[in-house]
C-alpha cells in the first residue's frame, strides 16, 4: 500500500494549497495609490472576503476596495467579531482569513481575536490603519502602537513604508500566515503610504530569508519511530490540531486502522479520526473520557502528532504516561520536549512525516491491549441522567449529533457546553469542530460560526453550521447576530442556557464550597429568543425534553438567515469525568461526589 501514497510535494506547493488556490490574474499597473496597489495584491492572493469596520485611517482603502469591486466586505458590529469571523473562515477553509480595521480603537479591538488565532495556529492577516508616518509617535488622534501591542500574539508583523513595498509585503504576509505552523500576521498601514503613488507589479518569487519551515522529517528518526511502533504492545496515537491543519487526517486514519492502534485526541484534534470507529478512545485530558485517560496512563508508547502536551491534556506532568516512550511529530520544534520528555522527536509537517512513516509501520500486536481498552469502555462510558425530564445539555448535543448524523460544522464558545460538545457530538470529519482551545476565548462561537458559513459561500464544502454557546459567552458577542441577519448568514445558534457562568459554577461547587460568587446570571439574563427576534433572527425557546428534537429540526431547515434556540437546560449539571487541576490523568472524578 506504501506505493499508493501520493508523491511528495515541495514547499512551494504547500504554499499554493494555503493561499493562492483561486488567485485572480492581475495585470501590472502604474501610478496607483498605495490603497489601489493593496487591493490588487489581495486579489492576487485569491482573497474574496474581508471582515472589518472602516474608519478615518483606512477610508481611502475602503474606497479602493469598493471601486475595485472584487471583494465582499462583511461589515461586522465589532472588530473582535471581525477577527473571530476571519479566524473561523480560515480554520474551516484552510485559506487565509482577512481582517481590515482602522487605527487606534479599531486595531485594539482585534487583540482578543488575534491572540485566539495565535494560540490555535489559525492563519489570518490583519490589516490595520495607522496615522500618517510623520505623525507616528505623537499621540495623534486614534493612534496606537499596533505592532507593539500585538507583537507577542502575532507570528510576524509589517509596517508599510512606501507604496512600492506594498505588494511584496502582502505576499510575504500571506505566505508567513499560511505556511509552516500557521498564525496571525499584522500589516500596519500608515494613511500617507496608502495615499502615496507607486506601481503594482504582479507576483515575483517570495523570499523571506530567515523563514524556512521544516516540512520533511528526518529520515533516520522516522525509521527509528517505525521500529519503535512495530515493537509496541500498548501504543496510543495522540493527535492534535496540527493533524487537521496539515491535512494529515487520512494518513492518521491509515496508520491507526491498518495497524490497529487506538486513537485519542485533543480538543483541537477532534474530527481528524472518526468518533464512530472502534479504535476511537474519545478526547483525553481534563474532561477526557475514562478510557482515553487510562489508556494514556497505561500505554507503553505514545505517538503524538501535531499536539503539544498542553497542561489541560497532561494533568500533572510528572505522572503523565509514566510507562510510555514518546514519539513526537510537530512542525514547531519549540513544542517538542517542552512539557514532557520525548524519546523520538521528529520535526516536520505532519502530513509529510506520515507519508514517509506509514509505509514503514508493520502492525504491532495490540490484541490484548484492545481487549483491555474495550473493558474500560464498557465499564466507564460517558454518563448523564438520560431519564431526566429536565433538558440535559448532553441530551441536546446527542440529539444534534443524531439529527445531523455528525455532518455539521460545530463551532463552540468556551465553557461547559464546549466540553459536552467535545464529549457527546460524534465528529466524523476534520475541520468540523471549530473552537478556541488554546486561549479559551468566550465570545468566539457566534462570530467564528459566521466566518465558517461565509467561507462556504466562497467555495468551502457546504455543511450546516451550528454554534453551540453558553448564555454567558453568547452575551459577549451577540451583537454579531445583527451582522448574520444583514448578510442572511444561515448560522444556527444553540444557547445552552443554564443561567450561570457554568464552568465557573462547576469549579465553585467542587472546590470553593458552593459559594457562587459572580457566576449567577439568572437575575438579569434577557429572554434570548426575543433578543434574537429583535435583531431580525428567528428565535426559539426549548424548556422541555420533548421539544428538543423538533426545535433542532426546525432550526436546521431554515436556510434564510440565523436562528437562535434558547435551550433552558438543567443549571446544576456538571462536566464529568474531570481531572482536578494538579491531579494526574488517572485521578479522575467520574461523577459528582455526592451522586456516588
Amino acid at each position, binding site marked *: 500500500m506504501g506505493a499508493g501514497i501520493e508523491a511528495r510535494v515541495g514547499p512551494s506547493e504547500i504554499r499554493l494549497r494555503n493561499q493562492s488556490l483561486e488567485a485572480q490574474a492581475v495585470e501590472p499597473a502604474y501610478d496607483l495609490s498605495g490603497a489601489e496597489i493593496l487591493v490588487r495584491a489581495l486579489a492576487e492572493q485569491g482573497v474574496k472576503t474581508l471582515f472589518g469596520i472602516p474608519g478615518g485611517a483606512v477610508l481611502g482603502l475602503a474606497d479602493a476596495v469598493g471601486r475595485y469591486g472584487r471583494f465582499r466586505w462583511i461589515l461586522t458590529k465589532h472588530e473582535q467579531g471581525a477577527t473571530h469571523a476571519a479566524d473561523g473562515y480560515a480554520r474551516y477553509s484552510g485559506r487565509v482569513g482577512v481582517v481590515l480595521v482602522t487605527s487606534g480603537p479599531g486595531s485594539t479591538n482585534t487583540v482578543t481575536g488575534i491572540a485566539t488565532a495565535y494560540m490555535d495556529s489559525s492563519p489570518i492577516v490583519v490589516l490595520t490603519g495607522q496615522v500618517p508616518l510623520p505623525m507616528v509617535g505623537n499621540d495623534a488622534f486614534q493612534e496606537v502602537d499596533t*505592532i*507593539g501591542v500585538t*507583537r*507577542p500574539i502575532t*507570528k*510576524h*508583523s509589517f*509596517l508599510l513604508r512606501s507604496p512600492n513595498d506594498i505588494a511584496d509585503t502582502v505576499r510575504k504576509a500571506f505566505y*508567513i500566515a499560511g505556511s509552516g505552523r500557521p498564525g496571525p500576521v499584522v500589516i500596519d498601514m500608515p494613511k500617507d503610504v496608502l495615499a502615496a503613488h507607486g506601481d503594482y507589479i504582479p507576483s515575483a518569487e517570495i523570499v*523571506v*530569508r*530567515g*523563514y524556512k519551515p521544516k516540512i520533511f522529517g528526518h529520515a533516520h528518526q522516522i525509521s527509528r519511530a517505525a521500529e519503535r511502533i512495530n515493537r509496541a504492545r500498548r501504543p496510543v496515537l495522540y493527535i492534535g490540531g496540527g493533524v487537521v491543519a496539515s491535512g494529515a487526517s487520512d494518513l492518521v486514519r491509515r496508520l491507526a486502522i491498518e495497524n490497529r492502534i487506538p486513537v485519542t485526541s485533543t480538543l483541537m484534534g477532534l474530527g481528524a479520526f472518526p468518533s464512530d470507529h472502534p479504535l476511537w478512545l474519545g478526547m483525553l485530558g481534563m474532561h477526557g473520557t475514562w478510557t482515553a485517560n487510562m489508556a494514556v496512563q497505561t500505554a507503553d508508547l505514545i505517538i503524538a502528532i501535531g499536539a503539544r502536551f498542553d497542561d489541560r491534556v497532561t494533568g500533572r506532568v510528572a505522572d503523565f504516561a509514566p510507562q510510555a516512550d514518546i514519539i513526537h511529530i510537530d512542525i*514547531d*520544534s*519549540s513544542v517538542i*520536549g*517542552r512539557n514532557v520528555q520525548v524519546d523520538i522527536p521528529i520535526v516536520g509537517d505532519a502530513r509529510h512525516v506520515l507519508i514517509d512513516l506509514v509505509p514503514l509501520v508493520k502492525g504491532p500486536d495490540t490484541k490484548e491491549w484492545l481487549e483491555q481498552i474495550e473493558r474500560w469502555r464498557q465499564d466507564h462510558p460517558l454518563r448523564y441522567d438520560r431519564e431526566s425530564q429536565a433538558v440535559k445539555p448532553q441530551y441536546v448535543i446527542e440529539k444534534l449529533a443524531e439529527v445531523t448524523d455528525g455532518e455539521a460544522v460545530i463551532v463552540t464558545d468556551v465553557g461547559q457546553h464546549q466540553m459536552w460538545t467535545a464529549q457527546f457530538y460524534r465528529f466524523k470529519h476534520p475541520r468540523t469542530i471549530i473552537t478556541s482551545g488554546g486561549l479559551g476565548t468566550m465570545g468566539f462561537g457566534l462570530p467564528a460560526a459566521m466566518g465558517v458559513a461565509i467561507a462556504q459561500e466562497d467555495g468551502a464544502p457546504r455543511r450546516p453550521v451550528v454554534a453551540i454557546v453558553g448564555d454567558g459567552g453568547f452575551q459577549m458577542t451577540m451583537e454579531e447576530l445583527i451582522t448574520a441577519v444583514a448578510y442572511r448568514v444561515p448560522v444556527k445558534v444553540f444557547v445552552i442556557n443554564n443561567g450561570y457562568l457554568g464552568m465557573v459554577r462547576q469549579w465553585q461547587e467542587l472546590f470553593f464550597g458552593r459559594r457562587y460568587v459572580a457566576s449567577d446570571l439568572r437575575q438579569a439574563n434577557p429572554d434570548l429568543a426575543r433578543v434574537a427576534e429583535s435583531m431580525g433572527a428567528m428565535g426559539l425557546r426549548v424548556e422541555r425534553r420533548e421539544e428538543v428534537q423538533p426545535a433542532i429540526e426546525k432550526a436546521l431547515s431554515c436556510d434564510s438567515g440565523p436562528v437562535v434556540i434558547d435551550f433552558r437546560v438543567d443549571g446544576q449539571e456538571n462536566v464529568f469525568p474531570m481531572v482536578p487541576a494538579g491531579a494526574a490523568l488517572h485521578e479522575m472524578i467520574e461523577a459528582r461526589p455526592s451522586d456516588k
Partner: protein
Amino acid sequence: MGEMKEHTISVLVEQTFDALPRIAGLFSGRGYQIDSISVGEAEEPGMARMTIVTRGDDGVIEQITKQLNKIVNVVKVTDLTYEPFVERELALVKVTATQSTRSEIMQIVNIFRAKIVDISPKTLTVECTGSRAKVQAIIGMLRPFGIREISRTGSVALKREFRGET
C-alpha cells in the same frame, strides 16, 4: 530541572524595524533572563549580529534557541557556549581617585592592560576591553576605591576559527 548555566548566543538577524523588539520581547514575554544583549551591523549589508548572554538550565536554553529560530527575521542562531569563541566587552569605569590612591589604581589598570581615558582631581575613568570575566575582575578590583559610574557594552562574540590559538 538542571543547573543554571551562563550561555552566549549569537544571532544573525535581518535589520528590520521590528527584529530587535521582537527578540527582546521574546525574553520578557517568556520570562527568560538577559544578562547582556548587544547588537550591531554584521558583515552583510542589512544584517545585524546580536550577542545575547543569558542563563538557564538546559531546557530553558533549548527553548531560547528554538524560539529565537522561530522569529521570522532571524537567519541563524548559534549557541557559542559549546565551542571555543572569542568574546569582548568594553567597559568605562569612573572611579574615585585621591592623592593617595591614584597610583595604586594606575597599577591595577596596567596589570589589566586597561587605559585611563579621563582624569579629574577627584576621579579617573578607566577603559577596559576583554572577556566578561576580565571586565568583571577589574571592576572587582576597582570597587574598594569607590566606583561612581559604570557603562558597559555587553559582550560581543564570534566563534573561533582555529583551535589552540588565543
